[in-house]
């Protein structure tokens, strides 16, 4: 049964999506759009693709966080904890360090492809680690293995950065801060399949996740195939996070915060929460991006700084209040 606040959430998310393109260093009015001048071109080529990419990525990361928190039965789990982000960063810094330049069909930049390859390598390494032992690693061990992998890739990335020149190191650092700067709709279109996949995954496995958070044995005895569920969710979330990080860089804490906020405000089962996380996560990252574009205008802050700043405070709040 849908919460009474749900229509408000839909309205909020759509309002953010609609108004965000008009806000920025260069303010755009409706008459500019109709007039077809520079404002119109900024809106169509820069702002709208950026807002769309932000909304899609925010929605994706929030659903990924929701699923991971249920899967690990851990309120502090987030999709960037399993080494996927650092793996993607490894691909990106290697791409910059090697000085290569290519793109896919001229629209998806090579750095995104390299980052996705890095994320994929991290997923496979973690998956292999989880299957070396007979019966597989427990979820908590898998989480710790992910944290270890994060540190491993982090240290390799630092070696590559350390060995690079000033310009390369600067590019690497900027990439690692995350950002939604884009020209044209190609990155947003590339982000769309990730959201569709994770939304369907969250929606279809919602009832199973409701049982899973009650305990693996209980879920199994109520008819959930927990081994398959764990495997499918781990791989799907990691893959989708890989796409997101490849396109926007590592944007922290969206996946951690949004599920908690949705649970508190909306409640309900994981099927309903999947919808709420998509709406709220999309609006949240888009709003953070608007802040990053306007707080220091005409300069821009990387959006990852805004989300991490808010996220760190929220993280501390969770720890201090003992949120379960």
């Amino acid at each position, binding site marked *: *049964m849908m919460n009474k606040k749900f229509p408000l959430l839909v309205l909020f998310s759509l309002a953010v999506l609609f108004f965000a393109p008009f806000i920025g260093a260069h303010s755009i009015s409706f008459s500019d759009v109709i007039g077809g001048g520079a404002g119109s071109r900024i809106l169509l080529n820069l702002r709208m693709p950026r807002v769309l990419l932000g909304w899609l990525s925010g929605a994706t990361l929030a659903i990924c966080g929701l699923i991971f928190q249920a899967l690990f039965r851990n309120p502090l789990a987030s999709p960037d904890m399993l080494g996927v982000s650092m793996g993607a960063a490894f691909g990106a810094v290697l791409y910059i360090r090697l000085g290569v330049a290519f793109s896919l069909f001229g629209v998806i930049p090579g750095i995104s492809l390299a980052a996705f390859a890095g994320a994929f390598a991290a997923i496979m390494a973690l998956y292999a680690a989880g299957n070396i032992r007979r019966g597989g690693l427990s979820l908590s061990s898998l989480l710790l293995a992910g944290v270890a992998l994060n540190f491993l890739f982090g240290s390799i990335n630092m070696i590559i950065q350390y060995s690079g020149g000033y310009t390369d190191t600067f590019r690497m650092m900027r990439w690692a801060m995350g950002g939604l700067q884009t020209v044209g709709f190609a990155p947003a279109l590339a982000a769309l399949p990730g959201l569709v996949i994770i939304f369907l995954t969250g929606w*279809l496995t919602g*009832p*199973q996740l*409701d*049982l899973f*958070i*009650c*305990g693996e*044995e*209980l879920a*199994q*005895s*109520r*008819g*959930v*195939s*927990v081994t398959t569920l764990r495997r499918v969710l781990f791989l799907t979330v990691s893959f989708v996070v890989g796409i997101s990080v490849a396109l926007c860089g590592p944007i922290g804490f969206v996946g951690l915060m949004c599920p908690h906020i949705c649970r508190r405000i909306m409640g309900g089962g994981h*099927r309903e929460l999947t919808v709420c996380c998509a709406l709220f996560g999309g609006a949240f990252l888009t709003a953070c991006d608007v802040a990053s574009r306007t707080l220091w205008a005409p300069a821009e802050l990387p959006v990852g700084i805004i989300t991490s700043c808010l996220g760190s405070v929220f993280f501390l709040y969770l720890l201090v209040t003992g949120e*379960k």
Partner: protein
Amino acid sequence: MVNDILEIKNMSYSADGKNILSDISFSVPRGGFLTIIGPNGAGKSTLLKCAGGLLPCSGEVFVEGRGIKGMSERERAKYIAWVHQGGSDRLPLTVRRFASLSRYPWRPVLAGESEEDRRIVGEAIARAGIEDLAERTLSSLSGGERQRALLAAALAQGTDILFLDEPTSYLDYRQQVEVMKLIERINTEGMTVLMVTHDINHALHASREILALKDGKAVWRGAADSLPVASVLAEIFETGFQFFRGDGQKRPYAAPAGFVS
């Protein structure tokens, strides 16, 4: 119709090179109530999990004459409901919501909670006598109330067989009586019960049959009122017992001899 609703044949289980269960066979008739007793580490809970298909064991398990090894988890959950030991004391779900999750095996993948689901959940809560607790969260309930809520959730699963793993652990005496009365009533209404307990008196007085385990082997199995209590209990628990009988009662109460002055 198959008379034995549950049949376990030659069940063995080992972990880390150690035999936990060795060649155990037994069956439970439709509407029966069998309790597995034994000391800590005898393999009671493992046997229950193997019988319910939650652990991969060698041997065969048949429910209603059908082998469960070929069944999916979802299909198996239409035959056997569980009340597990612990783990639900911190869940922030309401009793009604928790019970409605038990309808999962019956729901089509794309469907939500149906009117029929709501009716069955309501009936299960009423059967457990906890209508007044239906909107309370599990984490806010006392131990006895929570066990009754877990039993209501198991009833909502709509199965003919109920597995109970130490249902009276951590409960005070009044709560133990309430929960055991409810379990007896559920059994009387037709549910087949397989229970694991460390409490010999619950086994002796609530169940119809007893299976005594020691070191993963079946030591004795038979009707509860024909159990040679002194010898069997002394053998499996390795301590002496004294027995008391209430007026007109056929089955005795047992207490470890060391505690009786």
